[in-house]
């Protein structure tokens, strides 16, 4: 994967704000434009910041997002290429450098216009700096399923279409014909009346001198020729022969390696380091005190790691040393009790007359659900190579937020962020973890101390114990039910609202609703975890609606259908999943089916799980998934993302549990933070609906529904209602309807 040289963008401030998004031309030879001479090769014309057309008519698309395996490089390039009517076979891709001109304008726009589908969680980043419409707050995030929805829709397509418009105009001028008599096809301009054809490159210089329409007409879905096809992913060939370079693979001259150990208890700091404890060990160059962590720099990583195990470090007391997981659970439950007693809840959503509905209810159904902390456990442990030289700090790593990292790192080492140069590599998994810059700040701080490049690699133990975790939470529900079994009121109280704001909301037609929350601080760091709050609330709400179906004596799918009749977007997905899963057909003994549905980052997903419970062990046999992202740009990529999201969510539902003991995380590696393996992976069938409308995301939407679909299936098979995750703590040998709930 080729990269821009960063030098090209140091003076890019000359690009007007907004120019990036709309692809306004940078003209060659314009003396005020310092960018051009740096960014443009001799044989190339820089049409705009999103694409280049070379003299051989090949097209290079610049994708401002990190590749984490979700195929975003391919997808975004497709969006631009399709609008441009480019020849896909000659389209190449560059990843944009970390530069404020690439700050994800689309995200800002979503925020500043209050777009309801904008993932508001990006506004308040983990590290506490706020994204706003101002440039200096820049961010360049791959997460929240924003790539396709914002960058793709607002930048890539527009850039492609407006560039096509100027190419057509330039051709019309040159050939002295009406622009409307021309069309573009596979990187050629065609004049049907005369049969004349010429390459895009023949007009690119002239086209670059025309001003581009800022809001060109985009294609309708039925005009797409590249979007909607499953072209081979650009990043795959390098991933089958060992040549793909991840952050951990970077090699620099004279590079040394660093191992790290952070204070086990969150909030503690280094009190004392006894360097004599490792002075006999070979290959050690430096011990660096990073306040809340210690690093050892050595010739090789193994030497550094061995020394780290020997090193005698004392930590300060943070006051968190006696905190147990049970204390946190009690605190969260206590917060709910207190808010209830003092009428101190914050209102998340209120509709109708909840009290009246409860007064008139013929039955009230109550339930409480709990979820644990979860780690990301990306396959590639956190790592970053840093080198400070010639007044600059260069870093090689995989990050979901290049620009945010440069700002944070600049701050951490007291350097102007413009002198922090980031070389983003392939990410060995992101899932939200690589949007937090802690590991890169550490690497930069180590590099301050030494004259050579240092590669910092976290052990898996550090990765599990010093993550930024999906929150643990508790959610309580009451529903008023009328004589016909229909829910007339929905009341929900939960602790710690994060983002996105709509995650706790239900699509069901229940007139009277009161959703409330209270916040209760914990010492465990929080982070974006695939689908963020959807990962908990979909488990809560889709479990409770299932309980209401059971209380009404209804079929769970039929019950949902009745409450969704006015929501065609949900209905089409629901009907399709019913059909594809053969809902209602008999299953073998000890087997059950469960369903869940959710809308997450603009995409609606329904999943039906088939489970078998055999002698106390559960086996997830089949998952049928129907997804409607309005339009799916890369169907095979969408299937891959659903498979991935399902396995990720299934791992969490079955095994995921980070727990606190004496203030620290107990789990440490894959033996005690278990990951779903091949032998336990179900058969997954994904069906795609193109329901129309604004594109939805793919990266997160597969995850939320799988946990409730599974626990609903377990109930169907056994009569056992699981109200607390993970499922591994449930004793299935005591199955039966009398075992209601697990605590």
């Amino acid at each position: 994967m080729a990269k821009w040289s960063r030098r090209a963008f140091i003076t890019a401030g000359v690009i007007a704000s907004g120019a990036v998004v709309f692809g306004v031309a940078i003209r060659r030879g314009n003396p005020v434009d310092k960018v051009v001479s740096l960014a443009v090769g001799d044989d190339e014309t820089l049409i705009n910041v999103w694409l280049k057309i070379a003299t051989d008519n090949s097209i290079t698309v610049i994708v401002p997002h990190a590749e984490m395996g979700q195929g975003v490089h391919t997808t975004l390039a497709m969006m631009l290429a399709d609008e441009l009517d480019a020849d896909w076979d000659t389209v190449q891709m560059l990843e944009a450098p970390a530069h404020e001109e690439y700050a994800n304008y689309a995200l800002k726009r979503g925020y500043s216009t209050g777009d309801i589908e904008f993932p508001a969680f990006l506004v308040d980043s983990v590290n506490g700096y706020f994204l706003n419409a101002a440039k200096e707050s820049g961010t360049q995030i791959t997460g929240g399923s924003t790539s396709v929805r914002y960058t793709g829709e607002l930048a890539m397509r527009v850039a492609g279409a407006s560039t096509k418009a100027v190419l057509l105009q330039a051709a019309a001028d040159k050939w002295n014909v009406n622009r409307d008599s021309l069309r573009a096809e596979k990187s050629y301009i065609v004049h049907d009346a005369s049969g004349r054809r010429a390459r895009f490159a023949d007009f690119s210089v002239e086209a670059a001198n025309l001003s581009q329409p800022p809001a060109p007409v985009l294609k309708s879905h039925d005009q797409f020729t590249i979007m909607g096809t499953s072209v081979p992913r650009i990043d795959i060939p390098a991933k089958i022969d060992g040549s793909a370079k991840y952050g951990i693979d970077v090699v620099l001259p004279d590079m040394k390696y660093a191992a790290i150990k952070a204070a086990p208890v969150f909030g503690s700091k280094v009190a004392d380091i006894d360097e004599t404890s490792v002075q006999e060990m070979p290959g050690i160059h430096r011990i660096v005190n990073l306040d809340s962590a210690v690093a050892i720099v050595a010739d090789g990583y193994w030497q550094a790691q061995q020394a780290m195990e020997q090193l005698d470090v004392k930590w300060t007391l943070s006051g968190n040393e006696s905190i147990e997981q049970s204390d946190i659970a009690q605190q969260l439950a206590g917060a709910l009790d207190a808010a209830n007693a003092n009428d101190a809840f914050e209102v998340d959503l209120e509709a109708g007359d909840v009290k009246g509905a409860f007064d008139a209810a013929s039955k009230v159904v109550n339930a409480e659900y709990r979820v644990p902390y979860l780690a990301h456990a990306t396959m590639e442990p956190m790592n970053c190579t840093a080198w400070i030289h010639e007044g600059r700090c260069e870093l090689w790593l995989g990050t979901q937020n290049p620009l945010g990292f440069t700002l944070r790192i600049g701050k951490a080492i007291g350097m102007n962020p413009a002198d922090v140069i980031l070389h983003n590599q392939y990410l060995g998994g992101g899932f939200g973890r690589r949007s937090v810059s802690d590991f890169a700040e550490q690497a930069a701080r180590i590099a301050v101390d030494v004259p050579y490049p240092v590669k910092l690699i976290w052990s898996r133990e550090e990765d599990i114990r010093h993550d930024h975790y999906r929150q643990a939470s508790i959610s309580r529900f009451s529903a008023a039910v009328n004589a016909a079994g229909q829910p007339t009121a929905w009341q929900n109280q939960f602790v710690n609202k994060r983002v996105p704001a709509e995650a706790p909301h239900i699509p069901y037609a229940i007139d009277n609703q009161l959703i409330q929350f209270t916040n209760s601080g914990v010492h465990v760091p929080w982070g974006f975890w695939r689908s963020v709050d959807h990962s908990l609330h979909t488990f809560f709400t889709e479990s409770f609606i299932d309980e209401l179906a059971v209380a009404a004596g209804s079929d769970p799918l039929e019950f949902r259908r009745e409450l969704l009749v006015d929501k065609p977007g949900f209905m089409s997905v629901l009907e399709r999943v019913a059909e594809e899963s053969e809902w209602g057909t008999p299953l073998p003994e000890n087997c059950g089916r469960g369903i869940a549905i959710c809308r997450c980052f603009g995409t609606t997903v329904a999943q039906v799980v088939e489970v078998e419970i055999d002698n106390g062990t559960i086996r997830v046999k089949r998952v049928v998934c129907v997804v409607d992202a309005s339009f799916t740009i890369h169907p095979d990529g969408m299937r891959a993302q659903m498979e991935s999201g399902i396995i990720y969510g299934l791992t969490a539902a079955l095994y995921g549990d980070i727990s606190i003991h004496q203030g620290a995380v107990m789990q440490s590696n894959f033996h005690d933070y278990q990951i779903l393996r091949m032998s336990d992976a179900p058969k997954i069938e994904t069906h795609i609906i193109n329901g129309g409308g604004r594109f939805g995301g793919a990266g997160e939407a597969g995850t939320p529904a799988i946990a409730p679909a599974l626990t609903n299936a377990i109930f169907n098979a056994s009569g056992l209602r699981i109200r607390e995750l993970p499922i591994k703590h449930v004793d299935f040998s005591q199955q039966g309807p009398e075992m209601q709930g697990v605590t």
Partner: protein
Amino acid sequence: MIELYINGTKYMIDVDPMTPLLWVIREQVGLTGTKFGCGIAQCGACTVHVNGKSVRSCITPVKAAVGNNVTTIEGITSADGEPHPIQKAWLTEQVPQCGYCQSGQMMTAVELLNQISSPTDSDIDTAMSGVICRCGTYGRIRKGIKTAALAMRSNAEVPDDG
């Protein structure tokens, strides 16, 4: 000095003989396709072949590889540059997502197909369950193995001209 044979090339390396083979391959030899995932033989990301058998290089001291043939992901392409059937199948089935686990997956799958030319689902489960994929590519890995198995069998059936 330690003498190693990796992908048919001889290397003389000055390193503590207890150093795990993984770090020698990555840092001294400079082949970075073999990955670090856990360091305790739990994930399989570091899988390489020693004399054709899969080993977890993160817990294998380099001295155990002395005098043996080590093969890494960079070495499974045939001498004339032809990709291994597993690699071709991985492309056909578009297996990798982030790709980080895939060297370990492919090395394990190559060994499986060397032992069993038509693996059943349960053979695949047994062989592959030691290798974690956090991106959840298991279904595609299974398909990829079957695709490669088919290709290898039909190659084997082509009569030898010589």
